[in-house]
């Protein structure tokens, strides 16, 4: 600590970043909450003219597609938190303990999709999943994957998992590298076999890393928009809409209702979800550290 008490010069260091943060993050964030109680669309100059109370929320409450979007978002988050983390855990344990000759290369290959734009990934998969795409050619089917309501969300989850599995994998790998080796050696002396060692030593020891991965995927899951937009645009008939794409559809999409007040109330709901999660996280973290 350079100075024990507040000095004016601190302002010069802090202010530029703080200014940008306030103007382009905090203020829009708070306005978003306020705007959800107003009705406005497209080209208005004074957004705060028409106060409508909870009307926007009532509107989405009665919209069937909002509930679909909400359900899909939770499904997507579920897939990211449990399926994606689970597969990453399995792969990292296998690669780490499997004594692979080219383990660095294997990890790099699995990590590579993470650096690609979700848009590029979506476009790659879109052609594969199309009716005349290679998946049907391999399986010998003539199935329209992305326009089947019952599986379209699971396909989006699969593509998302395909892209982000390497991200969780390298985080798990870092966790494995800092593992306490003595416990495993002790287990060897006791004659434990590999599955016992993995299930009763490695996985419990990796618990903090698992929590971290789950939190990262949870946050990422609520963000998902690009992949939905590119793969299906929320279709068929809004059945693969998630909250973020539902917001986009209501506020910006060409041919959409162009009701930004309603869009703002969707933003309010996303905000509330994240805030709830953040609070739960703080409580869980306190419990872990105690």
């Amino acid at each position: 600590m350079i100075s024990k008490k507040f000095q004016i010069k601190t302002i010069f260091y802090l202010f530029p970043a703080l200014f940008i943060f306030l103007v382009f993050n905090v203020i829009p964030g708070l306005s978003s909450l306020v705007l959800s109680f107003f009705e406005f669309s497209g080209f208005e100059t004074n957004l705060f003219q028409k106060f409508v109370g909870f009307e926007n929320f009532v509107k989405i409450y009665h919209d069937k597609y909002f509930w679909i979007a909400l359900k899909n978002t939770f499904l997507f988050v579920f897939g990211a938190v449990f399926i994606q983390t689970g597969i990453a855990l399995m792969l990292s344990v296998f690669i780490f303990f499997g004594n692979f000759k080219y383990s660095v290369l294997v990890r790099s290959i699995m990590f590579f999709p993470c650096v690609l734009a979700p848009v590029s990934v979506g476009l790659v998969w879109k052609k594969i999943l199309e009716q005349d795409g290679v998946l049907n050619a391999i399986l010998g089917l003539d199935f329209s994957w992305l326009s089947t309501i019952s599986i379209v969300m699971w396909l989006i989850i699969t593509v998302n998992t395909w892209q982000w599995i390497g991200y969780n994998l390298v985080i798990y790998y870092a966790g494995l590298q800092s593992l306490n080796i003595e416990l495993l050696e002790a287990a060897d002396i006791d004659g434990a076999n590999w599955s016992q060692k993995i299930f009763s030593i490695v996985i419990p020891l990796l618990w903090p890393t698992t929590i971290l991965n789950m939190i990262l995927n949870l946050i990422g899951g609520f963000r998902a928009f690009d992949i939905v937009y590119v793969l299906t645009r929320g279709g068929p008939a809004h059945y693969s809409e998630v909250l973020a794409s539902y917001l986009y559809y209501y506020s910006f999409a060409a041919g959409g209702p162009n009701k930004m007040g309603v869009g703002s109330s969707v933003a309010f709901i996303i905000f509330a979800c994240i805030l709830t999660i953040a609070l739960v996280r703080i409580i869980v973290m306190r419990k872990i550290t105690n």
Partner: protein
Amino acid sequence: MNKEKINNYGATFKSSPAFYITTRLVVLFFIIIIIFPLLYTLSLSIRSPETVYSAKYFLIPEEFSFASYIDAFAYAEQRLKVTFPRMFLNSMVVVVSSVSLIIFLSIFAAFSFSHMKFPMKESLYNVMIASVAMPAQVLLIPMFYLLIYFGIINTYLAVILAYAGFLIPIGILILRMFFEQIPYELTEAGITDGASDLQLLTRILLPLAKPAIATCIILLFLDTWNEFVYAMIFMQDASIHTVPVALAKLGTSRYHINIGTYSAAVMITIIPVLIIFGVFQRWFIAGITMGALKH
């Protein structure tokens, strides 16, 4: 040291052939799943336009040709209204300016957080941490009007400032933690030698903080280069579209597009990233891991 450690771990699992075979099979399966879509797209892009629909061999083209790449360049110019060099330039302008702005401002702000005292420091810091978890879409509508109000919508500046506002907390978060890890004796020695704050920052802290700054650059580069929603909505002029925005139009375009041309266009955006990743992969993986652990 690291190598020895891995061998030690492995030795305890080596004796089981079941484990050996399972790991190979599972990992191989996932590698194929990861690689196949990318290789397949590559394969489509290097077929001659006539043989592109013959999926007979899946990966090996019947007839090699780079015609699709030429078609893709023409398609971008005619239908997407922005050439490939131009969209890469647009992305570069946005990424380089927003990342340098964020890093520059974050260095000073992180310094004041780590080495200075001011009122409400920790609550401000907590607000910043909380904002990292917020999805970008929450800010979309008010930000859109804010940028119209400032008269900078449809310019590079719109997206640069929006990125800066959204990502500055990440820069501050990582740099503050790093600055605080630097031993107190070093800064103290500087202070007794009569160094000013600025000298302390530039002569002592920054040279030591190079790895943290590299981490920031990697994380911010990925976030901004791949970002889609802000770039799509705040820069609607086709001539300043970034790579993801122009590319997304390809998938939703109402014009017919040959699948070879489509694949070539996608590959043009993937190949540069692949090269950069190939060169810097260690830094990428280390940076991402470090960034994630800081959450």
